[in-house]
């Protein structure tokens, strides 16, 4: 290893960034994809045996692992008849030269909250089915996702991971918990029989980047570095929008509708791809 290699990653990225711009100007992408093509998607579910639901997703070189866990909790005063859903994500320091250990950065908090809203606002999980005793005791569902390698488009990959973990996951049977609340060891639900997580639909988030005034989907880390704007749009199975986040830059008024249309198309495509990979019936 030579000493002038020490900042190699950073340099590599800069060189790549220059190439990206050059390529995009020539209506090409560095990895040969079309502007509206996603990278290869791979989903493994049930990868964490200790979790109630889990998935490992590879979207190109972006790697995310998701785990779903349950605890007993007290419902929020303003929604006594709903379980609690908590989504938290971290970009692990393994993920890239720029990721850091320590408390979550503002970028990580934003990503967590966008993923959370995508799941929550789509009403994918029927939270009313997580209630043990209204106003007193409910199941608290923790969804944690971690980015192990960041090659861009973290949010899309994380949402794919979360919905895969939920679709294939289980939860403690609330009926059983209700009937055996006294006998259960405190905060230990491992002995409780499990039922599938009550999901109703699943949302898809699509991130679109603007480079040299052209829209591309599923941007890589390097493409994100040179993008002028980046936006994530989440659609429900009924083609409703359930979350938008302009993550970076600005868009012309008309461009807003352009990205909405692209993302709608892509949401249908990715949803079908997930169904296929998970062996669920198509629509």
């Amino acid at each position: 290893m030579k000493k002038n290699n020490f900042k190699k990653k950073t340099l590599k990225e800069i060189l790549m960034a220059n190439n990206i711009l050059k390529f995009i100007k020539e209506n090409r992408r560095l990895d040969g994809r079309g502007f509206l093509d996603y990278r290869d998607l791979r989903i493994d579910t049930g990868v964490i045996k200790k979790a109630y639901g889990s998935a490992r997703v590879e979207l190109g070189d972006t790697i995310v692992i998701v785990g779903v866990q349950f605890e007993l909790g007290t419902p929020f005063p303003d929604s006594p008849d709903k379980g609690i859903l908590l989504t938290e994500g971290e970009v692990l320091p393994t993920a890239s030269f720029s990721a850091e250990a320590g408390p979550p950065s503002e970028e990580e908090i934003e990503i967590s909250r966008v993923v959370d809203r995508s799941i929550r606002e789509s009403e994918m999980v029927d939270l009313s089915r997580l209630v043990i005793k209204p106003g007193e005791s409910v199941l608290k569902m923790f969804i944690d996702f971690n980015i192990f390698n960041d090659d861009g488009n973290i949010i899309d990959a994380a949402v794919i991971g979360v919905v895969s973990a939920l679709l294939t996951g289980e939860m403690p049977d609330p009926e059983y918990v209700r009937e055996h609340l006294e006998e259960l060891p405190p905060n230990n639900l491992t002995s409780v029989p499990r039922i599938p997580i009550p999901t109703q639909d699943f949302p898809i988030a699509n991130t679109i980047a603007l480079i040299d005034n052209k829209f591309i989907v599923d941007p890589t880390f390097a493409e994100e570095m040179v993008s002028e704007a980046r936006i994530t749009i989440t659609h429900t199975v009924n083609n409703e929008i359930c979350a938008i986040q302009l993550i970076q830059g600005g868009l012309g008024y008309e461009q807003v509708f352009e990205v909405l249309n692209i993302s709608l198309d892509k949401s249908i495509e990715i949803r079908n791809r997930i169904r296929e990979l998970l062996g669920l019936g198509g629509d």
Partner: protein
Amino acid sequence: MSNKKGKKKKESNEEKEEEFIRIDGRKPDEMRPYKIRAHILRNADGSAEIRLGGNWIIAAVYGPKEHFPKFEISQDKAILNCRYHMTPYSTTERKSPKPSRREIELSKVIKNALEQAVVLEEFPEMSIDVYMEVAQAEGSTRVASVTAAAVALADAGIPMRDLVVGCSAGKVNGHIILDVGEEEDKEGEADLPIAIMPNLRKVVLLQMDGKLTHEEFKEAFDLALKGAMELYEEQVRALTTILKDMEIIEEGVKDEKE
């Protein structure tokens, strides 16, 4: 409580816009009363205050100034720091003064919005601090905050490509409405806060939660744009007032000198 009224009125699209009366008596496309004042704090390099319904937000700008620590400096432009913060008494239940995850996210999206407008390239190695303090919150605080912050930046004499002005639209009881209030945010079906550069016709803050069809989105987006343009007039008015005050002062200074 508005639910009953709302549900009754769910009729044809044309009619409903006319007849739907909101929880606070507003028409669907009606803003709450608003007022912007610039240059309200003596110490800040720039400042502004916005009242939008029950919202009361105070923004202050310090800078451009040397950035510390040195190793964070940006060689080619100024660093823009933004803090959106709620005072403990701004909400019905006391809010801890420690920034919440929500406040950190909103600070980040507001920073992105203002970065599009401020000519940061003019101040390499410097930083500009923008602080937004919510003294009272009543729905749509983030767009009101970015609106006040843009006026404070202009008041500080910081060069900008355009002002930034924000407004929200939403969906309540099936109706698309302008300028979402606190109750409407809680009870409603969707919330769409946006901020724009009104002359450059660019969206620089765009978030949504809830559920909207593409048609509803368009309706809501256009309504929010309309609201933003209305608030933009108020921004200009507030800045013009200050400019006049300054001219009077400057003339006074000239008179003294002569």
